[in-house]
């Protein structure tokens, strides 16, 4: 199953769904609408997607987790998340799926920095990504090139974890730590991101600063939680 979290993406969501459906007509695509104020829901349905409509705005983490929960309950073995703004090229979906099927890892990240790329991001975010790489390296035990990528695929094992516990705001980085704490593994594959098809990114430089502080706090809280449980078991 392909899930697409969307909030006020009326201008882009239809094209994203149509592109995915034209490439993979047999794969169900689920748009998780985070209580959009515009016509996102109708545009997604018109384009041929199923829509999981949240009655209240939950933010990205809650929105993605709702999709993971539904996919888990419906029994899917592989779920690929692709954003609704058109930045993720669905042509990489087979590569993500292939990596999920042919490797023991539980999550595959499509990384825009794999081969030195990394366009379409502001400078504060670029500094943040560099900082996250440094912080995550010792926690994850291996380098991660694009920890903020939302273009990911997960196996059912990871789906079970995320359905039960998923970070609510800015979830990508904390999700990596959540997985690592469960001794699950991830792998990165190269991809190229495209500019947004429509609308504006909600991530401004000021929000990026808040993002960095929030995520670092979330990462350390997850590390502390794990250590606490381990100590109690001993």
């Amino acid at each position: 199953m392909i899930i697409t979290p969307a909030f006020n993406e009326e201008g882009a969501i239809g094209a994203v769904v149509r592109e995915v459906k034209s490439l993979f007509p047999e794969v169900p695509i689920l748009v998780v609408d985070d209580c959009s104020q515009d016509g996102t829901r109708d545009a997604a349905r018109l384009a041929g997607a199923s829509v999981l409509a949240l009655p209240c705005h939950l933010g990205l983490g809650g929105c993605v987790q709702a999709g993971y929960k539904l996919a888990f309950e419906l029994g899917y073995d592989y779920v690929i998340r692709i954003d609704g703004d058109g930045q993720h090229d669905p042509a990489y979906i087979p590569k993500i799926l292939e990596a999920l099927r042919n490797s023991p890892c539980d999550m595959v990240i499509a990384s825009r920095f794999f081969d030195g790329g990394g366009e379409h991001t502001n400078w504060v975010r670029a500094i943040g990504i560099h900082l996250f790489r440094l912080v995550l390296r010792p926690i994850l035990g291996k380098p991660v090139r694009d920890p903020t990528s939302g273009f990911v695929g997960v196996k059912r094992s990871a789906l079970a974890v995320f359905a039960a516990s998923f970070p609510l705001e800015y979830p990508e980085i904390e999700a990596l730590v959540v997985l690592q704490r469960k001794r699950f593994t991830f792998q990165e594959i190269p991809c190229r991101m495209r500019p947004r098809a429509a609308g504006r990114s909600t991530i401004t430089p000021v929000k990026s600063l808040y993002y960095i502080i929030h995520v670092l706090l979330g990462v350390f809280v997850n590390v502390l939680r794990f250590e606490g449980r381990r100590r109690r078991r001993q």
Partner: protein
Amino acid sequence: MTHLLNVVSVAGLVLLAAVLISLRKSHIRVEHSVSWLAAAVALIVLSRWKTALLWLTGALGVSDPPVALIMMIFCVFLVVLYRFSAIISELKDANIAVTQRLAILEYRLEALDHERQQALH
């Protein structure tokens, strides 16, 4: 000093009255009013019972009773705010889980309805 204590007493009484009125009108639940009632009572007691205030001044190691009173007020409200932060966090988690469950149930209900319509035709 006496003027400050009178002001604190009045503030405590106003807080007490406001909480009781809110309880009566069901604007605030009983379990959430306990912290505010305790805060109001603490303000009134400390501002009216000088021996307690002097003891508190000595216990905190400050020279001035008004400073001790302000420190105590600050601590009481810090505890109340912390308690409500914990309650809000719990409620937010519950709210998210309920919202997701509602959306999933609605989705599955629509799918069932769609299947039923197709079976009828």
